[in-house]
């Protein structure tokens, strides 16, 4: 649209093939020069129809698909699916399997936050932190490869337990990794977290107040950064979390800036990585002996009914609404993902931002395309 003086508004197509849209997403950005009037996200490029596929596979053979809903949080997705089916079947999961799931989940959370923080730093111009965090992530991938054989989509949780027990020597390696982890976080913190340029790029940018966050359904680190003290692992405890204690970082409390801005999201994620390392230490100490798989009926045919099972994923609540009609294939499976609601908020946050800020907001909200489109 042109205004009185005849100046035209630039309509920029940021994506679907753009260096800083994580995955295949497109933003139609209406700007005049740098300041943005509005950014409208266009999604659907990565829609694989996983929910339709769920209606054609059996309950166990859907787990590889669950991993691919969000390949950075594979353990959480398969854990949520397994919990849903277990609640329908009424199967009791042995304690050792629960603790192994917690260890795998927290390792996966650290790996995911490595990518999240690394991408934020890289999108704001600093390439080196991304490489250091990738080095840590490689170690975690090696640990997972020893545990279950895969490096990204693990297919580790099963209905009723986990697929493999920890190989011998693996638990010590996890302990060694976690022992070193605080020093690595201290080094990352020294390199970039308090870097004046990075902090100023994120202070007061893309602020989501607590009321907006709840109204738009933000979850996980984005919600905690907005000031709402809510974490499924502590407030609706599931799996082996009741026995473990850890602190839940909330935005705007320490450090600089306002609750809900990009820097609060960075500080919350960084602190969460350290807390995950603490959780793994306690889980390693509390790992009981025993079987790794509960008793399961020969054929998994959950009774008719529906269940909503949610897990505190790395990006927040990752839940599955599973409807079963008694046959061995699910009747309907709807996945609730955090990037979906975070992406729907971009239109609210974006007016007034600059293009460089939009890049920072997308990176700190940690939205990822497969989870939005499923």
């Amino acid at each position: 649209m042109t205004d009185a003086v005849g100046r035209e508004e630039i309509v920029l197509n940021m994506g679907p093939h753009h260096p800083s849209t994580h995955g295949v997403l497109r933003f139609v950005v209406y700007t005049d020069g740098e300041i943005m009037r509005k950014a409208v996200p266009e999604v659907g490029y990565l829609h694989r129809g996983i929910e339709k596929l769920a209606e054609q596979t059996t309950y166990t053979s859907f787990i590889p698909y669950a991993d691919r809903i969000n390949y950075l949080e594979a353990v959480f997705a398969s854990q949520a699916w397994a919990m849903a089916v277990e609640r329908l079947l009424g199967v009791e999961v042995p304690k050792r399997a629960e603790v192994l799931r917690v260890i795998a989940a927290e390792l996966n959370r650290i790996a995911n936050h490595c990518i999240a923080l690394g991408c934020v730093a890289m999108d704001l111009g600093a390439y080196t932190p991304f490489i250091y965090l990738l080095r840590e992530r490689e170690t975690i991938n090696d640990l997972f490869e020893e545990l279950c054989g895969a490096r990204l989509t693990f297919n580790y949780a099963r209905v009723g337990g986990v697929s493999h027990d920890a190989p011998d020597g693996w638990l010590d390696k996890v302990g060694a990794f976690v022992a070193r982890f605080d020093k690595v976080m201290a080094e990352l913190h020294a390199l970039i977290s308090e870097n004046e340029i990075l902090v100023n790029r994120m202070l007061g940018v893309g602020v989501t107040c607590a009321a907006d966050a709840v109204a738009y359904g933000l979850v996980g680190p984005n919600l905690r950064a907005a000031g709402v003290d809510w974490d499924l692992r502590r407030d609706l405890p599931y799996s082996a979390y009741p026995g473990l204690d850890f602190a839940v970082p909330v935005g705007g409390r320490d450090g600089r800036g306002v609750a809900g801005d990009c820097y609060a999201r960075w500080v919350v994620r960084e602190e969460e990585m350290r807390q995950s390392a603490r959780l793994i230490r306690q889980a390693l100490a509390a790992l009981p002996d025993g079987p790794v798989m509960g008793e399961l009926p020969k054929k998994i045919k959950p009774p008719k009914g529906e269940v909503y099972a949610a897990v505190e994923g790395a990006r927040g609540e990752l839940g599955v609404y599973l409807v079963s009609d008694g046959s061995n294939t699910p009747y309907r499976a709807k996945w609730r993902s955090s990037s979906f609601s975070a992406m729907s908020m971009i239109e609210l946050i974006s007016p007034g931002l600059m293009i460089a800020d939009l890049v920072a907001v997308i990176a700190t909200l940690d939205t990822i395309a497969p989870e939005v489109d499923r």
Partner: protein
Amino acid sequence: MRPDNDIRALVGYIVETWELSPFWADVAAAVVILAVAAVVFLAVMTFAGVLTWAERRVAGRTQSRVGPNRVGPIGFLQWVVDGVKLVLKEDFVPDAADGPLFRLAPYLVILGVFSAMATVPFSQVLIAADLDVGALFIMAITSLVVVGVLMSGWASNNKWALLGGVRSAAQIVSYEVPAALSVMTIVLLAGSLSMQTIIGQQGGWPWEWYIFHSPFTFVLFFVFLASSIAEGNRIPFDLPEAESELVAGYNTEYSGMRWAGFFLGEFANVYVMSAIATTLFFGGWQVPGVAAEEHGDSLLIQGLGLVIFLGKAWVGCFVVLWARWTLPRLRVDQLMGVCYRYFIPIAFACMLGVALYALVVPAGSLPDVAVHLVTMAMGAAAVVVLFRRVGHHARSVGDRISLAEVLQRGQRFEFDPSVQLRRYGAHRRGGARESR
């Protein structure tokens, strides 16, 4: 009149020995100028090429990876191979682009950067043109780069390129001011614009360099370094070609040899920048212990001067590369804000400081030398703190993380409270800033 010891001396010598008629003297002058221009152009092209290899090595090593090490002894010929690849690549012109402008832009950038080498003194004799207004010439000619970048941004008819071009125009022009101020302060100290005289005024030993002349020039060096990094469009000021925001900024539509023009222009700019910094602040080709005058006769001292100059220039380049792989990128409004709120006031204050200092303290007296030594001690202290911190980081995480090694050392996995995150800005930042 200073003995002119650059091309004019060379041409004069040739005309004398061969007793050329005026016409042939002009031809000889033209040939000599072209030859010297070719030599300088090739020299700086090789420096820029080696700099691309050095950047990828420094990037590799700072990121705990290896960097190019396959082509040549330690990957040293990587840039030759890259050059061949770029020549072979197809450099098409988008049909909606503004053809002539699109083709002219890289040459303007290269012209702007390489012509600055005319007055860079490699050694007491080795200088293409020892102009009396050397420093002013460099400041003027390097702003040709703005025209080239803006032209490429506009001509490629691409929204990203346009944004990149406009950003670079604002950035380079506004960072000319602090750079010019710091150069002017050094000229004030040296008393002449000619680069050879500026070096001549400084001595060989570090405390005779202008950087340690007084705390003001010490701060001024960092202002000059930062603003010339900004002029070279390098991180943390690389807004015009911000990969993560503007796809590739002004050179989005370029490919092949034209893109190589911008690429070499950028790295040659880094080299020119550190060469000028060496001349102004680090005493150029001065050999410690040898006065500037005795350089003329012996070849050895000339060679030594050249080596010292190149060494200092390469250390300057390393600092620029090192900054690229450590710092994030500023936003456009912050970029302007930092320039107007921090760099220009500091540059003015340092200039006043230097002027007052020159007024109050007579040159060469005891307090003057004391101030030099104090500034040098300040610089040395900064370096010591840096390396102590480097040692701490190197030991804390260690290098190759093989978990087996960690296991053998029997490291238990309790929570290590000693590792605390150093929170600099723990205080709240004066209430909630207005949300953007």
